[in-house]
C-alpha cells in the first residue's frame, strides 16, 4: 500500500504531522504535511526506519497568489525516494513569511547542501545550521529572491542598475 509510510509517519509523530493527503492526478502519490520545526526528526525517521534513503529533491512553493492558499505563505517540499517502494514520498513543511527559517537536513544528506542553497537563493527561505548558506545561481550582490510571486517579471529595471561604461 502506498499510503503506509505516510500513515506510519503520522502515527509516529502525531504532534508534528498536520495531515496526510493524496497528491492530485492519476498516481498514488502521498504527501505528508509537517510543521516546520519537525522537518529534521521526520526526515531522520523516514531515512533510518522507513528506508527512504535517498533525497530526490528539495524545493519550495510560494502560495502568495494561490486562489485558496494554505495558512502560511511558503512551503518547503522534500521528495524522498526508497529502494523498495516505487512511489516517492513527498513531505511538505509550511513556512510563514515572517519566520522563514527551516532546520537544514545537510546532516542527513550532502545533496541537501546545494538544493537548500538554491531554495535560499530563489525564495529567501533560510536553513538553520547549514554549513555554507550563500547564493548559488544569482550573483552574490543581488538583493531579491526571484521565484517569489511578488518579484515582478517585467519593468523592474535591473538592467539600469548596472553602470554604462564609457571609454
Amino acid at each position, binding site marked *: 500500500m502506498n499510503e503506509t509510510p505516510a500513515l506510519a509517519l503520522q502515527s509516529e509523530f502525531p504532534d508534528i504531522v498536520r495531515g496526510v493527503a493524496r*497528491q*492530485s*492526478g*492519476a*498516481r498514488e*502519490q502521498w*504527501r505528508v504535511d509537517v510543521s516546520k520545526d519537525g522537518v529534521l526528526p521526520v526526515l531522520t525517521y523516514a531515512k533510518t526506519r522507513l528506508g527512504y*534513503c*535517498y*533525497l*530526490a*529533491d528539495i*524545493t519550495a*512553493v*510560494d502560495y502568495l*497568489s*494561490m*486562489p*485558496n492558499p494554505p495558512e502560511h505563505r511558503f512551503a518547503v*517540499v522534500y*521528495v524522498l525516494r526508497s*529502494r523498495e517502494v*516505487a*512511489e*516517492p514520498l*513527498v513531505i511538505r513543511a509550511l513556512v510563514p513569511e515572517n519566520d522563514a527559517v527551516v532546520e537544514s537536513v545537510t546532516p542527513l*544528506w*550532502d*545533496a541537501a*547542501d*546545494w*538544493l537548500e542553497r*538554491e531554495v535560499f537563493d*530563489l525564495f529567501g527561505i533560510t536553513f538553520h545550521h547549514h554549513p555554507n548558506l*550563500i*547564493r*548559488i*545561481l*544569482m*550573483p*552574490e*550582490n543581488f538583493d531579491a529572491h*526571484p*521565484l517569489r510571486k511578488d*518579484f515582478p*517579471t517585467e519593468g523592474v529595471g535591473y538592467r539600469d542598475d*548596472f*553602470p554604462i*561604461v*564609457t*571609454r
Partner: protein
Amino acid sequence: MKPHTGRPLKFASVPYDPEVPRPPVMPDPIMSRVPKPDPDSGRTIFNFGPSHPSTHGTLRLVLEVEGEMITRAWTEIGYLHTGFEKLAETLNYNQFIPLSDRMNYLSAINNNVGYAHAVEELLGIEITERCKYVRTALAEMSRIADHLVCIGMQAVDIGAYAPFLWGFARREDLYDLFESFCGARLTTSVTRIGGMLRDVPEDFVPGVRAFLDKLEETLRETDRLLTRNRIWMDRTQGIGVLSKEDALRYCVTGPVLRGSGIDHDIRKVQPYFAYDRIDFDVPIGSHGDVYDRYLVRLEEMWQSIRIIRQVLDDLPGGPINVYDNKRVLPPKEEVFTTIEGMIHHFELTMPKFGFKTEVGGQIYSCTESPCGELGFYVVSDGSGNPYRLRVRPPSFVNYAPIEHLVKGATISDVVAIIGSLNIIVGELDR
C-alpha cells in the same frame, strides 16, 4: 538620407574624463571565500573556467594545488541561469515544451517526454499505446545521442580523437531521423500534452532499423578503441572515485550512481511509458571511477538498441494522440480545415481559457534522462499556466560532489572527471 559611401562608419570618441566616477568593481564572489595559501606551503590558487574548453559550458572551479595535486576546490555556477522556472509561470502548459529543449539540448527529447509525462500525470491524461511506444523509442534514441556525445567529448578532452568523430557521425544519422520526424535536429519539441506533435513518418521505422545496424558497428569500434586502450585506462581508472556510500550521501542519479555500483534506474523502479513491457538490463559498475561510468554508458547504449528493437517490433497501431479536445491540441489538419478544430485550438491556446486544472493540485513526476533522474514538481492553480514548475535537474545534483571528487586528483584529471559527470550547463543553471 545620405547616400551610403561604402566606408566604415565613424564613431564619436568619448574622451576619458577623470572626474566621472568609475563604476564600482563587483567583488569576486569566490575569491573572497578562498583563503590565501601560506607562501611556505608551496600551494597556489588558480582558476579553472568559466570558459575552459573542457567544461563544455560556463562553470568555474577555483583549485588550490600543491605541485600538480589538488588539495581543495571551490565551485561557482549560475553563469547560464536563465530563469526557466520563473518563465514557466507566465506560459501555458504547452508553451513550456520548447523551453524544456533548451535545458538539456543534447537530449532534448528526454526533456520533452519527461515534461509532458509530468503534466499528463497532473491532469490525469492517459496517453495512447502507440504514443507510449513512440515516446519510448524516441527517448532511447535521444539517450544514445547523449551518450555518444558524452563518451566522444570525454575522449577528445583526454586526447583520443577518433571516437569523437565516429560518435558524431552516428549522432548526425540520428539527427536526420529526428529531422524526418519533427523538422528540427537539436531542439525538437516533439511532444504535446496528451500526445506527440504528429505521427511518425512512413519511412521512420526502417530508417531506425538501418541506423541501429550502423550504430552497432560504431559501438564495437569505440569499444575496441577505448576499453582496452592502455592510455585510456591509465587516464580514467581510479580517477574521480565516488564510493557507494558517497553516491548515496550526494544522492547522485543516472550513470554516475550506477557506475558506483547501485542498481537504481527509474525505468525499472517506477516504469513509465512502455518500459514495464520491455526486457532490458541495467548495467552497474563496481569501482565508481571515470572508467566505470564510461563502461556503464557504453553498455546502456547496447541496452537502448535492445529496447528500440523491441519497441519497433511491437509498435501498435491506432491514433497517436488522445482524442480529448478539451485538453489535447487537435491535429493541425483539423485546425486548418474545420471550424470545431479551430475553436478547440483557440480554447486551449488563448489566455484566460486553456487547460482546466485543479486548484492546488501538485505532483512530483520523474523520468530517467541520460544524466539521471529528471523530475518535475508541478503545482496548478486552476488556470492554464503552471503555478509553480520546479525542474529537478540531474546535472545540478550530479555536479554537487565535484569539490569532493577532485580532491587529490591532478589538474588533467579534472577534465576527465567533469566529462564523466556529463554536465549540461543549460540544465545545471536553468
